[in-house]
């Protein structure tokens, strides 16, 4: 079996005196879809942001695809990576945000080709062709020249997913991708994510979308107070949670 796509060992992270992650350990295999549940403030989003080094971890080890995140190990010592190396690693990990974060001054197409052309040096015509294809697949072929402000939340989030996929990432992180959407727009985004999962993408999804977690996830994790307190396949997790805290949480949101 190949190395796990993500491996965390005792990851700690504090913001000032507030300890947000208190020893998170987990593994995510290649091609696996993992949903992370938990109350707000439990550290789900922070952990996700640590995986692509948007946040630096304070202690523990975190590997993506076999190499340390943000650091390099040599002769038993750990060295911080240079900015350019951090950027190169980040380019291999796609991230989708709760608030979409599309570049407001760029059209849909420009949003999607920005990173491939600027970061990877893909020729413009090739990037446009691939972007057009991706936007077609998320159902936005007719919105190429539209600005983000003119799109609905669901459309914006689908552009954001296409933008992340345009970098051909080996891992996709979703930070509450449907939490900022009107209820009737959640479905269109979830559909795109489901198809992505079926295509074999490795995905870590922080979500409150229980339907998605139950149907699409290979594994569900429960985080509380900076730790992973329970994990299991979705059927077992939802139908027979073991931890009291999980039961409480599920009873509140289901």
């Amino acid at each position, binding site marked *: 079996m190949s190395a796990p796509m993500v491996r965390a060992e005792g990851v700690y992270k504090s913001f000032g005196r507030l300890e947000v992650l208190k020893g998170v350990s987990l593994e995510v295999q290649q091609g696996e879809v993992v949903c992370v549940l938990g109350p707000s403030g439990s550290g789900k989003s922070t952990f996700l942001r640590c995986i692509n080094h948007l946040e630096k971890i304070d202690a523990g080890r975190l590997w993506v695809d076999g190499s340390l995140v943000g650091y390099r190990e040599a002769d038993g010592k750990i060295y911080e990576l240079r*900015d350019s190396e951090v*950027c190169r690693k*980040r380019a291999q990990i796609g991230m989708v945000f709760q608030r979409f974060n599309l570049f407001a001054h760029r059209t849909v197409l420009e949003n999607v080709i920005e*990173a491939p052309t600027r970061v990877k040096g893909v020729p413009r015509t090739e990037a446009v062709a691939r972007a057009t294809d991706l936007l077609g697949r998320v159902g936005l072929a007719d919105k190429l020249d539209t600005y983000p402000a003119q799109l609905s939340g669901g459309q914006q989030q689908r552009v954001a997913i296409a933008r992340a996929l345009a970098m051909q990432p080996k891992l996709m992180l979703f930070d509450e991708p449907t939490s900022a959407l009107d209820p009737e727009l959640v479905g269109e985004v979830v559909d795109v994510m489901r198809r992505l999962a079926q295509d074999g993408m490795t995905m870590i999804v922080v979500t409150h979308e229980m339907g998605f977690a139950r149907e699409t996830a290979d594994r569900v994790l429960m985080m509380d107070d900076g730790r992973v307190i329970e994990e299991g396949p979705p059927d077992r997790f939802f139908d027979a949670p073991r931890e009291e805290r999980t039961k409480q949480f599920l009873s509140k949101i289901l």
Partner: protein
Amino acid sequence: MRHPGRWVAAAIVVLLSAALIASIATNPRFEWSIVGDYFFSTRVLDGLVITLELTVVSMAIGIALGIVLAVMRLSPNPLVSVASWVYVWFFRATPVLVQILFWSNISALYPRLSLGIPFGPQLTDFSANDVITPFAAGVLALGLNEAAYMAEIVRAGILSVEEGQVEAAQSLGMTRLQTMRRIVLPQAMRVIIPPTGNETISMLKTTSLVSVIAVTELLYSVQLIYAVNFQTIPLLIVASIWYLIFTTVLSIGQYYVERRFSHRGSRDLPETPFQRIRRNLFSFRHATVEPSGGSGGSG
């Protein structure tokens, strides 16, 4: 009458304006014919050109250095950030007139300027008086002073861009410089441009301070003329009208640039005043009032 107060106020304004215009037109000491004689004289026009050059070059220095200072100020490196803070503090805390005098007397402090390695060999060497001409001293003083103000304007613009934009760019693997240049600064423009327009207009007038170090810009040019013919007032009027004309031109330019930048990202631009007047005249004539065109959404 429904609003008697308004009629009274309007009458007072009209009366006072009439009195002012009558006085300007009839008081012979305004010497309007002399104003006319000198308005397009070569010396005045040459001075005007130098004023415009000073404005453009000083603003260019101010904007370029201001952006660098703003980015430095927001750097995670504390030494870099503090250096920028000290610069802004120093230049804002001293009058620009003093700075102008200082630069024009720089040769008293450093008679020779040389380029080389500190404590090491020197590569080139100039006399300060040759390099720092009065024009150069003026540009340096105005530009370096302006940079301090522009730094604060640019910093406010950068801070106005949502943090999520930076995170999205970083998550795509863009470097800090790419993120700043491609994502943050273009969006900061809508906040940066209006005060930059003000600064440019202000700079056009501030260049007149450089007259104290004998740069023959607009003000010093007319001063040289009236020092000889004693027509002080008419010549000051000549200079004032030129300043008025160019600040007006800049204001109009500012309006159009602002309109362009604040509405990128939404489809329709708001009407210009001319378009509004045209539309009003048109709808007035036809007595049918169309609902005014789409309001520009948030961009």
